[in-house]
């Protein structure tokens, strides 16, 4: 029995699938706008005013926008699940030896790879405009912005499995923008009204921002915030797992 399954058994991961997945995303004009254009434009919009007056706030907005870009990228990949489910693609995949988890792995892989793009672009624009960070700070801020977007890959997958709509991203774009605004990604929180400062800690974007900015500022990051981040990730992963199981064992 086991000898046949080695030759013709289930497949967990396909690099070809991941590659084609990336190629699809890069061919999609809307995704490119989200990935390449929007994050630096938002950065200039919200951050350029601080460029000369407040370098610290400038760096704050730069890193926050890198987080925002990575978040959009990873969420939109996850959200494609809703489209692909409605098109019967996940059903087609179930007629192949690819394990159902292989599909999720491919999505997470593509999300993380594409998440690099806006981070590099935003930090590149920031550097060109004269943001002053040490080498170590650039690297640390970049890596943390990117890595923390993993929580949004989970959020995207969760919503992708939750929302039956053809295009979950139409719903998700505004949601992400609101979460970013209230989470303090668009403007330094200490410059916002007290009411907004009180709301911010309830947003998953808040803890991500704190972690990503921690290399350059005394952002007030505590272990509690890291726990927050883990909790959000846990909630989204658990939600995804639940819906995923319901989806693959549908009767």
């Amino acid at each position, binding site marked *: 029995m086991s000898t046949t399954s080695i*030759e013709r058994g289930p497949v967990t991961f396909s690099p070809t699938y991941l590659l084609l997945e990336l190629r699809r995303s890069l061919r999609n004009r809307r995704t490119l706008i989200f990935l390449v254009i929007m994050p630096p434009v938002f950065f200039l919009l919200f951050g350029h005013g601080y460029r000369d007056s407040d370098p610290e706030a400038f760096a704050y907005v730069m890193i926050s926008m890198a987080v925002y870009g990575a978040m959009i990228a990873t969420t939109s990949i996850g959200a494609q699940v809703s489209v692909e489910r409605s098109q*019967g693609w996940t059903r087609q995949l*179930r007629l192949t*030896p690819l394990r159902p988890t292989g599909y999720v792995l491919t999505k997470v892989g593509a999300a993380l790879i594409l998440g690099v793009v806006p981070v590099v672009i935003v930090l590149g624009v920031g550097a060109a405009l004269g943001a002053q960070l040490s080498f170590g700070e650039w690297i640390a801020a970049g890596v943390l912005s990117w890595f923390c977007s993993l929580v949004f890959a989970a959020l995207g997958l969760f919503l992708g499995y939750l929302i039956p709509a053809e295009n979950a991203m139409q719903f998700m774009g505004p949601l992400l923008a609101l979460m970013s605004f209230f989470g303090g990604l668009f403007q330094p929180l200490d410059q916002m009204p007290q009411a907004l400062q009180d709301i911010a800690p309830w947003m998953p974007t808040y803890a991500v921002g704190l972690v990503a900015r921690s290399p350059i500022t005394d952002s007030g990051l505590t272990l509690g915030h890291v726990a927050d981040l883990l909790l959000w990730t846990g909630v989204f992963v658990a939600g995804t797992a639940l819906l995923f199981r319901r989806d693959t064992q549908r009767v």
Partner: protein
Amino acid sequence: MNTTAIQETLPAVQLSGLVKSFGAVTAVNGLDLTVTPGEVVAFLGPNGAGKTSTIDILLGLSRATRGSVKVFGLDPAQAVAQGRIAAVMQTGGLLKDLTVRETVQLNASLYRQPRPVGEVLERAGITQIAGRRVGKCSGGEQQRLRFALALLPEPDLLVLDEPTTGMDVEARRAFWNAIRQDAAQGRSILFATHYLDEADSYADRIVMIRKGAVVADGTASQVRGMAAGRQVRVVLPGADQVALAALPGVTSVQQRGDSVTIACGDSDSVLRYLITSTTAHDFEVTSRNLEDAFIALTTDEATTGQGF
């Protein structure tokens, strides 16, 4: 231990006592079906007869409420993972923004030992459109692409769920030509269809289902004989039903009062017998085609006339 020899003798499909309920609705109701390797079976039935539910269970896409499902002796999911069974579904299942070739490449990468991409494109007759976006392909071309995907594992059993629904005559012919050219290797094929002429032309065996259970099952010619052929109706008091049933080509004899209805493949010999050896009178000969039989076998009295 000679596993290959054992596997050869296992049926391609073995469904026994299959039941599938959706809440209060019973879609499949005690269905039994065995398909031997190499058989081409047409699965006929009106909408809602349980065809798609049965196929979904066979492919491991849904679970039976009761009963057992084996594909070459394996659970459906195992058979899929080993590439023994593959399917061409009616709609969906394609990403519109990939090209035809990319779609095949992607699916090929999900198998451990797939057939070469170029080969399945050729066999499905879509080499010329390999560079086209899937979203720009016609329904018939998309269906041949699904067929190409199903060929990747070189499956021993190919399941087609109403594969030509919505195609024009030309596209249907092209699709079936592709299937037929490929069917020579002794692969089992099970296809659900609405088109009786397809069942007639391409199947070795026809299985008709109604309300989730098999109502007719036989080789194409047997079902033809049972379902098609002629019907002779005569008035014959005290008819010898046993003698009539023993006549060559007779598939059924029904008596209502003095009226006897004989379904047969060869009405000439029945008529000759009735004229020379009995006192039968008021002869009436009608021909029944497969479609009449299909309706007769698969339709409720209440819904007769709605047809399909």
